[in-house]
């Protein structure tokens, strides 16, 4: 179905989850919604419900507390779905990497599709990262179909 395929590229709904971020990346992520960047022109909507989301945007490093929450959110999202790690902390753990409670980057817990580096990441970079994640949704949809057939 070409129509669904095309629509999937044009309507990525984003779920933004703040792990142990310092709020820097969150401010930049929310800045994407402002009239200056206006991500809605790509069809991106910042939803508050994992069941509606296509792309999980995670900021901040994962620790022992929010690991469960993060996994839970990811598991509630319907396929096809992608994960974008925004900022140095989400990519690797950043400067908090050696803290006693920090596990590290998001990839310690979830399969990350796109890493957006920076401290904090720029809005342009975040939008770019989400659009790269969108292009990966198609492979995931194929995998979902193959899994359903098997």
């Amino acid at each position, binding site marked *: 179905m070409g129509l669904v395929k095309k629509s999937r590229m044009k309507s990525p709904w984003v779920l933004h989850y703040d792990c142990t971020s310092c709020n820097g990346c969150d401010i930049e992520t929310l800045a994407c919604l402002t009239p200056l960047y206006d991500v809605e022109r790509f069809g991106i909507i910042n939803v508050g419900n994992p069941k*509606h989301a296509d792309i999980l945007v995670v900021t901040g490093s994962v620790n022992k507390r929010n690991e469960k929450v993060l996994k839970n959110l990811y598991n509630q999202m319907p*396929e096809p779905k992608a994960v974008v790690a925004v900022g140095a902390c989400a990519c690797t753990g950043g400067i908090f990497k050696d803290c006693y409670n920090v596990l590290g980057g998001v990839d310690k817990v979830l399969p990350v599709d796109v890493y957006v580096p920076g401290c904090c990441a720029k809005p342009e970079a975040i939008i770019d990262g989400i659009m790269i994640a969108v292009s990966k949704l198609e492979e995931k949809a194929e995998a979902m179909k193959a899994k359903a057939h098997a």
Partner: protein
Amino acid sequence: MDIVILKDILTVVATIILAPFIGGLLTGIDRKITARMQSRSGPPIFQPFYDLFKLLGKERLIVNQTQMMFVIGHLFFAVAALAMFMLGQDLLMLLFIMAFSSIMLIMGAMSVRSPYSKIGAQREIVQIMAYEPVLILMVVGVFLSTGSFMIRPLFSDMFGFGKPLLYDLPLVFIAFIYVLTIKLRKSPFDFSMSHHAHQELIKGITTEFSGPQLAVIELTHWYELVLFLGLITMFFAQPVWIGILIALICYFFEIVIDNISARMTWKWMLQATWIVGIGVAMTNIIWLYLK
């Protein structure tokens, strides 16, 4: 006789096929206008269709077996109401079927165990409490004015109602537009399911609906949108194109209201719709009685 039936069947089929296109396109234009009012560039006009087809292609996460049935019922009764309107059937019955469609959505939201979903459903019930009396009064007004509940005479010259309904029911029309804000899910009355505010309690009623189910709910909203614009047209029919033009102007007016007003609480809404809505509509009906 057979030709009349054939014509009716064709009308229904055309309605079922064309209404989503019109509704989706209007929603897209709504989103674009809203974006321009907020000095953003906004999504493409076809964005609602992209959203719909994407949701149809998502994985089916089924919470319970009855949920999908309620969602389909929500769509079915909305389509039935629109088909009745296009065939010029009984306005009172149309209203009941429309209410049934809303009830189906509430039942679907109530059938799951999520507290957010249940709160959302309760808020939807409060909304129905707010707008339903005004809609009933509208039907009463139409009956007093034309002596019939049927819609068809309003759109045809044969029955001798040469003047628009509006001449008899100006205040009822104002009350109708007033409560339409609730049904179109626009501020200040959008406190159960809004097109904005995704992170808030407002989205509660859709909490447990995902993928194809959410797509069906969106589709139902497009059918409802066309139905309501049709009901506005009813007040201005003859010629019909003036009615359609005025319906579109009213829709634009609703978009403006949506953008310039904040969301209010449900208590405020009940007071506002019952006092202003029912008061204004009743004034008109008493005047019709005395005339």
